[in-house]
């Protein structure tokens, strides 16, 4: 990969590419966004259809706790995959099980889990910062292109392919179950299994995105693209492609802003995404006004 980055740097020196391409971290960040945007943007419309927005926020918080657990178990701070994946997956399984069997509303239950993971994470982080430079932990909270390695890129690409393949296979059944579980059940869909599978796919997608977007902002990445697209879309196909387009535009734009103004990449991307949302909201309002009879 270093040869590829050197080639981009040469093009940047010649002026064929923006100056930011002189740095390998920018190229890695851009490649990450080009994979993340279709992955998270694509899943976004399903997350919103299944009302898992708050759930995604809880998973982001769980990632911080998972990082602390991984560090305490002796994992390196830049590759605490065991702790993060493990704790997030266990949290996801527990949240879905409780949601399916408890009598409280789903958002209340997710709020309880969010509080639990946050409290646990804060306590563990105090122990962790006795051993680590806390600034590196901040990178996980807010995202930092500087921490993305070629190994992270490979993991991201591999997981994106796996998630896309599985989602493609179960998509129709999943969307039907999202619309009405009883109709899906009658049609022979294994509704419980689908619910768990989707949540596990979402967990995996969120975890591999943390280094670029950050744990505190990951929820925005799986909610705002679909919300922005929904303002204008009138079909599922338009909804999906609108979500991906929003994520791509905001992702790439946010990346350039991040490196230009030296702000965390996650924050810049999310702000760009929010700008797209309000733009589509305004367009939808104008379209709605144009359609009303005089």
């Amino acid at each position: 990969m270093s040869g590829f980055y050197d080639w981009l740097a040469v093009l940047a020196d010649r002026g064929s590419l923006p100056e930011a391409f002189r740095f390998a971290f920018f190229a890695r960040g851009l490649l990450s966004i080009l994979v993340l945007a279709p992955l998270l943007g694509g899943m976004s419309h399903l997350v919103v259809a299944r009302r898992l927005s708050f759930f995604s926020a809880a998973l982001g918080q769980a990632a911080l706790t998972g990082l602390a657990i991984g560090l305490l178990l002796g994992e390196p701070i830049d590759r605490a995959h065991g702790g993060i994946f493990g704790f997030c997956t266990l949290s996801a399984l527990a949240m879905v099980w409780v949601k399916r069997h408890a009598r409280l509303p789903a958002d209340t239950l997710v709020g309880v889990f969010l509080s639990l993971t946050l409290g646990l994470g804060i306590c563990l982080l105090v122990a962790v910062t006795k051993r680590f430079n806390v600034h590196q932990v901040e990178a996980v909270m807010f995202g930092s292109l500087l921490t993305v390695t070629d190994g992270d890129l490979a993991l991201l690409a591999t997981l994106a392919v796996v998630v896309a393949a599985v989602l493609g296979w179960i998509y129709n059944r999943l969307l039907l179950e999202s619309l009405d579980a009883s109709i899906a059940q009658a049609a022979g869909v294994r509704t419980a299994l689908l619910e768990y599978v989707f949540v596990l796919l979402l967990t995996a997608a969120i975890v591999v995105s943390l280094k670029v977007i950050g744990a505190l902002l990951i929820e925005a990445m799986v909610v705002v693209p679909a919300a922005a697209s929904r303002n204008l879309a009138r079909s599922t196909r338009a909804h999906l492609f609108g979500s991906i387009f929003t994520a791509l535009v905001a992702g790439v734009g946010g990346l350039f802003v991040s490196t230009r103004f030296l702000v965390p990449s996650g924050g810049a991307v999310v702000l760009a995404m929010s700008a797209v949302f309000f733009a589509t909201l305004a367009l939808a309002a104008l379209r709605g006004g144009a359609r009303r009879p005089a």
Partner: protein
Amino acid sequence: MAARTRSVRWLQRGSRGEDGPRVVEVLPPSRRDETTWVLLAAGFVVLAVIYVVAFERFGAIDRAGAQAGAKGLLPFQVLFRDLPSPRQRVFRAMQEGAAEAVSKRAASGAWPTVASLAEDGIPPFAPDPLDETALRWELRNDGLLRQYVGIPAREGDPAWLVSIAEPEPQGGEKPVPGVVDEEHQSLPDGRLLHVTLWSGTSVPATGVLAEPALRGWKQVRVTSPFEEIERRAGSGGR
């Protein structure tokens, strides 16, 4: 028409009755079955985590020392021992100079100028006839950031940077018991300075270089964060 097999969870696969129809029994949703599967999945996850952590911690021992030492380095960090010899000399000089500057800051409350450090013969600020790098040093300030910038005379030679972040006037980062690392040095009142050493190419004409990593600079460390933690753990966390 042959009956289609249905893979619905709530239908138990039935047998053909004597008069031909496929008999299936509708079963209610089973919480016990679901719980069993979830617990099995959770157990698998725990086993996977144990394997991954064990591989990361103990699998690395078999690899070459340089690889093990590099564990925990972020992409913008390099180890001192991986630098070529001339750059190692500059780095050593910068370590000494940074330590002296911090000491004078602790004593007087003000950061020493390059001229005063050179006058005291402190490397790398003091001229050295054997030094081929011919670096010109400047002290630059912006808010809580102080930077000693070494600008090479020859184009293409690496530039160097000692970047120090002062603590907030009110409060500031206090040392946490057990945390002693090469990026944190204490002031007499217990607050911490954040000190990092960098090597790079592009130096702004004026002003500090905020976020050097985003400008392609490399932070030079003596040990990787992983090695540092192992060393601290081995010495009882002192």
